[in-house]
C-alpha cells in the first residue's frame, strides 16, 4: 500500500458514480468521502441509503447524483434494506433467475442512523452475516435536521440540543464506540477511515469488498457547517483528528487490530479543537480533561495493537 501520507491524484480511481450537481454544503468532507468510497466500489454496486444529509442532498427528485442503483426507504433501516437487496440478488442467482455475477451491496448512513436509531437494524444485519458493506459517515451530530447531538457527538461539542450555557459545557457524554460494537459481532472486517487520508481509505474499501460476510467502515466526515468552522479547513481538521488521537485510523481484520497510522507522539488536542466553533466555549481545564480521556483511549488502542480482540 502507498504510504497513508502520500496522495497522488493520478493514482486514484477516476470513475465517479456519485456525481456533481448535488446540494452538499461547501467544504463537506462527508460528500467527499462518499465520492471516494464509490470511486473504489465501482459500477457493480447497489446502495441502500438511510435518510440524512447524503440522501437529501443527492436525490431531490427529479435530480439524482447517483449513477449506480440506489434505494432510500427510511432513516433507521438502511442496513436491513441492504441486507434484503443482498439476499434477493443471492437467491435469484442461486435459482438461476438472474445471471451470476459479483455485485457489491452497500448500506450507508450517518452517525445518527448508525449509532442511534439504526443500531438495531445494523446489529441484525451484521449478526446475520450478509455479504455486504455498511458505511457509517460520521459527522458527529444530526446535521440534516440542524446540528442536534447524537451518541456519536464528542464530549464538549456544542450542538443545538447540547448547547453550551451557564450550566453546560456542551455534550456531556463520550462518543459511542460504534466500530468496536460492530467488531463485537465477530464480522471479518471493521475499519475506521477518513477522506483526509484518501489512500488509506481506498485500501480499506478494497479490503471490505474482498471479505466474505459483512464489513463495517466508519468514516470520519468533517462537517464545517455543523462544526462551525471554515470550509477550507475540512481536510486539515480530518488530519488533526487523527494526529491528536481523537479519531484513530485502525482496522480489525478477522479480529486482529492494526493501527494504520501509528501516532506515538499525539499532537496537543487544542490544535484540533481550536479551529472548530463547536468547542469554542471550552475552558483550558475542560480541554485538559478531554485530552486526558482521548489520549488514554488512544493508548488503550495501542496496547491492543496486533492483538486478536
Amino acid at each position, binding site marked *: 500500500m502507498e504510504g497513508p501520507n502520500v496522495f497522488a491524484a493520478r493514482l486514484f480511481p477516476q470513475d465517479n458514480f456519485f456525481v456533481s450537481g448535488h446540494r452538499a454544503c461547501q467544504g463537506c468532507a462527508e460528500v467527499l468521502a462518499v465520492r471516494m468510497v464509490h470511486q473504489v466500489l465501482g459500477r457493480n454496486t447497489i446502495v441502500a441509503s438511510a435518510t440524512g444529509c447524503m440522501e437529501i442532498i443527492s436525490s431531490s427528485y427529479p435530480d439524482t447524483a447517483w449513477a449506480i442503483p440506489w434505494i432510500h426507504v427510511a432513516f433507521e433501516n438502511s442496513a436491513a434494506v441492504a441486507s434484503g437487496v443482498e439476499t*434477493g440478488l443471492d437467491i435469484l442467482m442461486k435459482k438461476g433467475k438472474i445471471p451470476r455475477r459479483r455485485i457489491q451491496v452497500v448500506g450507508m448512513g450517518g452517525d445518527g442512523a448508525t449509532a442511534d436509531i439504526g443500531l438495531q437494524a445494523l446489529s441484525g444485519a451484521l449478526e446475520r452475516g450478509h455479504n455486504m458493506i455498511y458505511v457509517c459517515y460520521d459527522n458527529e451530530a444530526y446535521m440534516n435536521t440542524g446540528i442536534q447531538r447524537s451518541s456519536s457527538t464528542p464530549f464538549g461539542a456544542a450542538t443545538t440540543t447540547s448547547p453550551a450555557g451557564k450550566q453546560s459545557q456542551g455534550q456531556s457524554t463520550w462518543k459511542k464506540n460504534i466500530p468496536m460494537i460492530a467488531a463485537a459481532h465477530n464480522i471479518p472486517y471493521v475499519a475506521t477511515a477518513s477522506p483526509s487520508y484518501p489512500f488509506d481509505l481506498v485500501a480499506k474499501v478494497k479490503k471490505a469488498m474482498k471479505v466474505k460476510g459483512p464489513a463495517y467502515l466508519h468514516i470520519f466526515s468533517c462537517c464545517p457547517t455543523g462544526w462551525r468552522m471554515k470550509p477550507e479547513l475540512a481536510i486539515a481538521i480530518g488530519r488533526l483528528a487523527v494526529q491528536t488521537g481523537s479519531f484513530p485510523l485502525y482496522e480489525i481484520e478477522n479480529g486482529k487490530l492494526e493501527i494504520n497510522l501509528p501516532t506515538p507522539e499525539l499532537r496537543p488536542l487544542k490544535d484540533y479543537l481550536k479551529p472548530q466553533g463547536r468547542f469554542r466555549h471550552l475552558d483550558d481545564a475542560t480541554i485538559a480533561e478531554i485530552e486526558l480521556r482521548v489520549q488514554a483511549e488512544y493508548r488503550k488502542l495501542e496496547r491492543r495493537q496486533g492483538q486478536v480482540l
Partner: protein
Amino acid sequence: MEKRIGLEASIAVAEVVGLCDADVISAYPITPQTHIVEHLSEMVADGELQAAFVPVESEHSAMSVCCGTVAAGARTFTATSSQGLALMHEILFIVSALRLPVVMAVANRSLSGPISIWNDHSDVMAERDIGWVQIFAENAQEALDLTIWGFRLAEDQRVSLPVAVNFDGFILTHTIEPVLMPDRESVQAFLPAFEPLMRLDVDQPITMGPVGIPDIYTEAKKAHQEVLTQSYGPIVETLDAFAKSFGRQYLPVETYCADDAEVLLLTMGALGETAMTAVDQRREKGDKIGLVRLRLWRPFPFDDLIRAVGKVPVLGVMDRAISPGGPSPVASEVKATFYQQEQRPKVVEFTVGLGGRDTPLSDFDGMFDTLLAVHRGGEIPKPTIIGLRE
C-alpha cells in the same frame, strides 16, 4: 390435481407460499402468526422450497428487508400480527409508495394495551392508510386462495402494489379445516414469473425513494391514490381469473341471503361464517335477515357495497375494532359510502369480539333483534359494544 386435506389455516398459507415459489421470506416471530413462518422455515430447511429465509431482529427490519428483496426482483412474503404490524407501520407506507409488491399475511390480533394476543381487527384498522391492497379471508380455503391470488395481483404491472391478506388470529389461523390444496402446476399456470416494474439493476441504474420536494409531493400522492383506486379493475379481473383456474369465485363484496332481506348485517373476516349459521337459524323462524360480507377493505369497494345493500332499509355494521373518541372504522366507511346516496339504509353500529371476546350465536341473535326493531320503526340505537360485561 388439487387435494382435499385437513390443514391448519396457517400451514395452508405457508404451503401455498411454497407453491408460489417465493424467493424470500423475511419475518419475525409474533403470536398468532408464527405457525406460518415456522412452517416456511421448515420447508426451506428441508429443501422443499428454494428460498432465502431471513430471520430478522424485528418486524421493522422484516418489512425493510422485504423492500430490499423486492427491489432486487425477488418474490417476497412476510407475515405478522398486532404489535408487529404496528412496528412495521412506518415502512408500510413506503413499500407501497415505492410500488414494491410484497405479499403479507396478517393474522389479525388486538393491539396493546392491555397486551392481548387474541383476535380482533384493531391491528389492521390502524393501518388503513398505508396504500396497500387489503383483503379479508373468512376461512382457511379463502386464506390460502387469497394468498396465491395476492401474488398475482401484487405483481401485476398495472398494480405493482403490496397486498395484505388478513385472516383472524387463532379463530382462523389455528383452526384445522378441510381445504382443497391446489397442485403446483395449476398455481404456476395462474401465477406468471415475477417481472418487476422497476428493479435495482447495475446495468440500468435507477434512484428509488428520492426526496419529494413540495413541487412533487402532491403529485406523488395523487399517483399513489390513483394506482390503488384503479387497482379495482385488475382485482376483479384476477379474482375472475382465479375462479377460472381453481373454480372458486371471490368478489370484493359478497352477500348471503340478501335478496329478500329486510335487514342486513355487514361482517368482515371469520365471524362471517358464524353469522351465516346465525342467519340460517333465524331464516328458519321466518326472519328476513341477510349478510353483507365485506372482503376488500382497500381499495374500498363503494359501488359493490351500494349494490349489495340495494334497497334494504336497515344495515347493521360489525366492527372488530374501536376508534376511541370517534366512529368505529368500518361503520365510518360504510356511512361515508351512503351519505351522498338518495337510497341509503339506516346504519346500526355494533362493536364485536374485541381482544378475543367470544361472539356466540346468541350475540348475533341480539344484533338481529336490534336490526329488526329498527326495521319496525324503532329508533336507531347508539353504537353498542356486544358481549360487554357490565
